[in-house]
């Protein structure tokens, strides 16, 4: 890397003692570049083995990479921590302005450890960290209000990130998220709860540092080439026009859209919650992460009359994406777009992961229908497909953890099913509630063997759409090699939507601009190594392929490849187990 680059600066913050220091970690940045690669090393160092994820011993790591601030679509920050939901590796990515803010503050990574006695928020500005009292923010009903207050009281408008948690994080709901710039989220695996357990309400970062490049002229030329490709590409246009919601109709057509808790995989009322319909009737604004020309973030303007006064309206701006439409729409049988938007609004206000929340509520609805629970548990609510008012009330009880039932739901669907039954339709894989792709065996194997049990780990849903009847070892090979390459992308760190632009030869040139001389083979080797390091953490924290639970529901529903054969899935898990065990032995 370039000598004058600040990328290797790591900021360590200790909340217990309210101390901080900086350390240059060229050792890990030179070897693993940044992002996921660096974050897993810092997590291995800073997270106490087998700790309680909601204790002072857990650490939070944020990391950006060498392409951050230099190239378009290098817009994401990687967060790593031990997940309270899965009790294992937690990793989640978000954009907004987080990545450029960290880079501009002259940092490559931030480690937050310990626990504060009282509510606190952190304000990082270049080489200073301010520990500020957050008592006045704690317990606020809506995360929007928290954002408004901090926007006013903190400096650096336009050049900062404001990450904050909502009530769900404070209440330690195990899938609470961390929101940044109002509409982006470190959504999955409960980073919000880890913040909450540390009494950390918000993290604001700003700074004024430039980023050196090796050859200014070459850098600008390469930039122009990537920019041109980005703005002309089809994928980019697709996500600009309708956002990820463009996929709703398509996935419904191929019967991949989980509906009514995956009792079926297409939805009769899909038109009303489709990207096309929402854009035509509700789209109020598109926004982008910093340094991204696409602007995939779509925000609906919902105009609702007040009941107590004529001609008086409230207009709220509510973000929607494919995943939210699946989890808080079709999964709950919501065909009324207004109702769906109202559920999303509540989920946003509480700062809770939309996917996990939707899956949990769908599970509860089925439990209720099957009379495994009654109004005694739900405190008088009657969850029913399509009944959005009930779900809005359900969310209030859930975030307040109002009784033992809601408390169990706040621990995730996997845990709740051990208390209330219904394991066969408790749709979590590796402890994480499923995303919205019922495409076939590769999708499910992907969730099970991915390092963070996310569809984004290895894109199994994509494999299902391109290949059928692959032998187990070939499928596992496909998924793991994709996951290896994605480690490289998430170490640079670029948005996965731009993976078509950032092919190995381009990545190599970009890295050369920031002083990393690596060939294409090196990139693949580093990617593989990072994935193995993640599994090192997973095994250390007790992960085992043998203990993965398979909800029976997925074998009862048709997919692109017909019904899924359980033996085939088990065979794939066996292959994956062999692969990771032998490779991590090689490392030793």
């Amino acid at each position, binding site marked *: 890397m370039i000598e004058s680059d600040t990328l290797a600066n790591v900021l360590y913050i200790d909340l217990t003692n309210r101390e901080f220091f900086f350390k240059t970690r060229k050792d890990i940045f030179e070897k693993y570049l940044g992002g996921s690669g660096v974050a897993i090393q810092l997590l291995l160092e800073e997270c106490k083995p087998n700790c309680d994820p909601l204790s002072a011993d857990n650490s939070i790591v944020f990391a950006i990479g060498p392409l951050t601030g230099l190239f378009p679509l290098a817009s994401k920050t990687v967060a790593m921590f031990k997940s309270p939901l899965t009790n294992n590796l937690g990793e989640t990515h978000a954009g907004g302005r987080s990545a450029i803010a960290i880079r501009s503050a002259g940092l490559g990574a931030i480690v937050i450890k310990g626990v504060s006695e009282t509510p606190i928020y952190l304000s990082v500005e270049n080489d200073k960290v301010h520990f500020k009292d957050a008592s006045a923010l704690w317990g606020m009903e809506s995360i929007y209000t928290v954002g408004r207050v901090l926007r006013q009281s903190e400096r650096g408008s*336009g050049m900062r990130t404001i990450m904050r948690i909502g009530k769900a994080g404070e209440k330690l709901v195990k899938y609470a998220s961390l929101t940044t710039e*109002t509409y982006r989220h470190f959504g999955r695996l409960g980073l919000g709860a880890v913040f909450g357990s540390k009494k950390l309400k918000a993290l604001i970062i700003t700074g004024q540092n430039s*980023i050196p*490049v090796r050859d200014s002229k070459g850098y600008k030329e390469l930039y122009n080439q990537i920019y041109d490709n980005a703005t002309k590409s089809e994928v980019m246009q697709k996500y600009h026009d309708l956002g990820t919601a463009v996929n709703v109709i398509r996935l419904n057509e191929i019967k991949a859209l989980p509906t009514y808790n995956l009792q079926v995989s297409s939805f009769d009322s899909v038109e009303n919650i489709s990207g096309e319909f929402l854009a035509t009737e509700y789209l109020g604004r*598109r926004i982008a992460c910093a340094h991204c020309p696409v602007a995939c973030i779509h925000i609906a303007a919902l105009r609702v009359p007040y009941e107590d006064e004529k001609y008086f309206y409230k207009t709220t701006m509510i973000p929607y994406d494919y995943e939210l439409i699946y989890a808080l729409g079709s999964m709950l049988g919501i065909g009324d777009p207004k109702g769906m938007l109202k559920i999303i609004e509540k989920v946003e206000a509480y700062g809770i992961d939309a996917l996990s929340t939707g899956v949990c509520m769908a599970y509860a609805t089925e439990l209720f229908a099957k009379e495994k629970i009654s109004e005694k548990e739900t405190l008088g609510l009657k969850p029913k497909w399509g009944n959005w008012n009930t779900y809005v009330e359900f969310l209030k009880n859930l975030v307040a953890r109002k009784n033992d039932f809601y408390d169990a739901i706040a621990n995730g669907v996997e845990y709740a099913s051990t208390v209330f039954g219904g394991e066969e339709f408790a749709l979590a894989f590796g402890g994480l509630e499923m995303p919205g792709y019922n495409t076939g065996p590769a999708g499910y194997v992907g969730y099970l063997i991915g390092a963070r049990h996310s569809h984004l780990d290895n894109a199994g849903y994509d494999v299902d759409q391109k290949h059928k009847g692959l032998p187990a070892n070939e499928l596992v090979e496909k998924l793991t090699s994709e996951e290896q390459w994605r480690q490289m992308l998430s170490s640079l760190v670029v948005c996965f939507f731009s993976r078509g632009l950032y092919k190995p030869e381009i990545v190599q040139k970009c890295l050369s601009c920031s002083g990393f001389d690596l060939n294409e083979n090196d990139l693949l080797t580093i990617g593989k190594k990072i994935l193995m390091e993640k599994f090192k953490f997973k095994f250390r924290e007790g992960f085992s392929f043998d203990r993965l639970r398979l909800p029976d529901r997925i074998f009862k529903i048709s997919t692109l490849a017909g019904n899924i054969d359980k033996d085939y899935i088990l065979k794939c898990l066996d292959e994956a187990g062999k692969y990771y065990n032998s490779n991590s032995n090689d490392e030793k």
Partner: protein
Amino acid sequence: MRVTIVDAERCVGCQLCMFACARRSGKGGLLDSSILIRSIGGMERGFRVTVCRACPNPPCAKVCPTNALVPKDGGGVKLYTEKCIGCGNCVDGCILNAIFWNPEKEKPVVCVYCGYCTKFCPHGVIAHEKETKIEGDMT
């Protein structure tokens, strides 16, 4: 010559214009940008585009004690860095907040009206106006 705001409502807040402006210095990041995109109190309300308007009678030049900022024909100013003492009067003098600051050099950052940023606005928010058509008091 100046950068003109065609329609701020089209802005998605990607800040590509800021990155472009900063890149002119041959570096990455946002440090030397003389255009700023920030939200109007929350991104849901849209964005504010702040860039030098190339005033015909620029107040920033009036408050410069060393004549480092000199009005240009047709509007706007030119910065003579060697004359600048880094007092920051110009920053306070611009009510549009369109004069920025480089803390490393302790000097103002002012638009040079080159229009480079406009080449990287994919959404038609800003444009390069070759001939300034601004109305104002020229006295």
